[in-house]
């Protein structure tokens, strides 16, 4: 008894000395004192009062209360644990748990009545869909997991909880279907998460950098999504999803290049229209990357690839422009990038004004002043608009950077420079692997069926999962089994 008291005092002193902003509620009983320790900013005070303090107070003060008794008969909290390791008290408090410390018992109770302020489930902001569901992830891991679990009611869904960050101890959930996902991929991801040695992570973007093969990665090799339906779709395909507390973006692995050009609406719309949109995105991606370089190559080097009437017309429209095409293109691309970046950062109300000012200044005034040619403005606008077409914006980012290299190479050596840079980029793309899957699959190594399915997609037509994912279960649905509606 005395030793329990001493221990109890010692723990309280230790916690008070650390200035962890821990609140204490003492309850006295015949046998001793119970201290309720909690951090008020992350504890549900109402639940604390109703489910812990009130029942304790209502309990008879004549009898001795042990920690086990408190769990079994007194407190009303659904998730509580009995602990004896005193060193874990601080970490439990910091995790948002409430501690019941007994002066007459070496054990203590850990209660889960956490309450962190979080926002309501929003609509997706960057991955908008017409026909698909409109719920998106938020920063709370539990809420995100609830969105996934409400869609996937299968016993083989695994949710492995891990923690990263010595100071932040950020919870991370690794989700996969045990009988579908490739073990190598799952183990690799879990290993890489386990190997992270850092003081803290604040977003899934930072986590992503630790999970990739190389330190320097230009092309994205993990998908990101803020949508629960896309997450579930990825899990059903046999992929592994990593959700981090504090980030509304889930990471999906492995993800190949062609998948960045898919959007969720492709799955919900008529398959022919979905195909049309996919092809449109491929064209848009190519246009956004090469159209400015083609302009430079044709105007500066290879004018005779155009019909004569076009050449003369272009020459007439550029007759007042003082810059050479390379400088012209680089200037206007820089301006376009500046406008794009400023529109992200600026408050919405001013954003519209910037868009109008940018359009007027660059569009009208620059052409009227003869600073830029009208054709170039069309070319760059086309490039800019095309860059917004792919659903997953992360695939455009490397091309935004590489575009400048391509422009400079083309401006220096014409189509020779253009071809060489394209070759280098292609070589890098085909040499990439994303968690053991070739990045350019199914284009190379070529698989005809997967390639067709990546263009013309319909779940009804594709009972098999893509071969390049090397899943354990190759079939989405067994062949010749009719899909029965159970509800």
């Amino acid at each position, binding site marked *: 008894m005395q030793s329990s008291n001493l221990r109890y005092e010692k723990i309280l002193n230790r916690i008070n000395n650390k200035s962890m902003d821990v609140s204490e509620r003492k309850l006295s009983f015949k046998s001793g004192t119970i201290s309720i320790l909690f951090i008020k900013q992350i504890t549900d005070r109402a639940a604390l009062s109703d489910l812990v303090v009130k029942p304790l107070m209502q309990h008879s003060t004549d009898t001795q209360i042990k920690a086990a008794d408190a769990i079994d008969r007194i407190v009303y909290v659904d998730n509580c644990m009995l602990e004896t390791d005193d060193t874990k008290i601080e970490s439990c408090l910091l995790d948002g748990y409430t501690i019941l410390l007994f002066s007459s018992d070496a054990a203590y109770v850990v209660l889960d009545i956490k309450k962190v302020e979080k926002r309501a489930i929003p609509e997706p902001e960057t991955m908008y869909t017409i026909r698909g569901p409109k719920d998106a992830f938020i920063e709370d891991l539990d809420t995100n997991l609830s969105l996934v679990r409400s869609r996937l009611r299968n016993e083989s869904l695994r949710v492995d909880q891990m923690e990263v960050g010595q100071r932040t101890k950020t919870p991370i959930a690794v989700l996969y279907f045990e009988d579908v996902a490739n073990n190598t991929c799952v183990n690799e991801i879990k290993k890489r998460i386990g190997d992270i040695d850092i003081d803290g992570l604040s977003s899934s973007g930072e986590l992503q950098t630790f999970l990739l093969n190389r330190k320097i990665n230009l092309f994205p090799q993990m998908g990101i999504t803020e949508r629960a339906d896309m997450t579930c779709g990825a899990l059903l395909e046999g992929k592994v999803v990593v959700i981090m507390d504090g980030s509304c973006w889930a990471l999906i692995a492995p993800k190949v290049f062609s998948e960045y050009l898919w959007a969720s609406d492709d799955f919900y719309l008529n398959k022919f229209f979905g195909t049309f949109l996919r092809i449109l995105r491929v064209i848009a991606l190519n246009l956004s990357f090469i159209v400015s370089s083609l302009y430079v190559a*044709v105007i500066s080097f*290879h004018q*005779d*690839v*155009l*019909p004569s009437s*076009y050449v003369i017309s272009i020459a007439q429209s550029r007759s007042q422009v003082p810059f050479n095409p390379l400088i012209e293109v680089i200037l206007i691309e820089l301006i376009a990038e500046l406008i794009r970046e400023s529109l992200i950062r600026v408050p919405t109300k001013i954003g519209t004004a910037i868009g109008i000012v940018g359009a007027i200044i660059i569009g009208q005034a620059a052409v009227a002043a003869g600073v830029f040619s009208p054709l170039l403005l069309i070319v760059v606008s086309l490039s800019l608009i095309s860059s917004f077409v792919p659903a997953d914006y992360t695939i455009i980012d490397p091309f935004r950077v590489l575009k400048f290299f391509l422009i400079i190479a083309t401006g220096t*050596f*014409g*189509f*020779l*420079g*253009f*071809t*060489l840079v*394209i*070759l*280098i980029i*292609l*070589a890098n793309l*085909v*040499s990439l692997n994303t968690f053991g899957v*070739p990045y*350019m699959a199914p*284009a*190379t*190594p*070529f698989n005809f069926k997967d390639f067709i399915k990546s263009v013309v997609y319909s779940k009804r037509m594709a009972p098999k999962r893509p071969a390049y994912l090397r899943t354990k279960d190759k079939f989405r649905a067994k062949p010749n089994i009719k899909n029965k509606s159970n509800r």
Partner: protein
Amino acid sequence: MVNTITNRQMFFILVLTLSAYSIIPLANRMAETAGTGAWLSLLVTSLIFMLPLLGIVYLNNLFKGKTVFDYAPKLIGKAGTYLISMYYVLFFLLFLFYLVLEVGVVLNADFFPETPLWIIGFICIPVFCYISNKGITTVARLCEVIGMIFIITGILVHVLMITQGKLNRILPLFSSAEIENYVRGIKPAILPFIPMSLLLTIPFAKQNGKKSTKTAVLTILFLVFFYVLVVESCIMKVGLNDIVNYKDSLIVAIRDTAPTFFEFFTRLDILYLTVGMTGLFMGVIVIMTVILEFVCRMFAQVKRSVISIALGVMTFSAYLILIGISDFDIFILDIEPYLVFVSAMLIPSILLIVAKLKKVGKQGKRHAV
């Protein structure tokens, strides 16, 4: 992990390497010798080379996942292996120098007349080295992507040329009085097949199976079709008597084509400048990769990137020297039949015969199944 290629990749590697540069002067060389019967000379030459190709494919299938450097010691001993490796390295080096020089000359003559020749080599060779350094798997995948686009664009362009050309220019297709010319036409038709033996350095994937033989046959048949298409379309467009005046007959013929029904695409140069050049470079890159693979196996202790840089420096130096030599291409064309005979026929035949005599084939077959 051993870098292996699939059947499909083998097809594209062969198509790009064997055709990318050789189709440029092919039409004028065939027109000079075989005249309107060029198609026949090409067909006969391709059929002649089908046999050695099948032999090489058979060897590769016998020793799946291995290159000649790996299985030759079992057959002909280490000394013999080094001997043939040295031969192949020198052979492919010579061909690489020829190819790089010709690529530079073509680009300078047809598209970049003001750019000094040495600059073209200076910017292209490091890029080739960089890509070939990435390994045979990367190069094979690249060939798969680029090869498809190259073939589709090539067929489209040549069909357009046929629609714009004059049929009379390729007639008569056969004349018994010209048979001697058709036979003479076999020698220039050997040029596309020079690098055929590169397959010996590229290991086949285990899942290739017997389909690789079928793929090899289809590759040759496709190449026959493609060469005939190229040559005949060029002759139809430019004319038999005039085409002999151009060294780069393909490019001249493409520039001559102006399909008016495509308002925007009246000039097809842009397709050659992008797709054609990419295919051309891929052919050089494959040869460079093959040399790199050979040399890396021979000097396993040296880092691959060091060998790659050394190869690049050597290639550029040779390029600078050969710019000053006017008849290097004639020299190559004169000795090519002998080189090809040794590299594509003699050495693989010896290896095959020894493999059969030593009954490695039986064991090999068991593993293959």
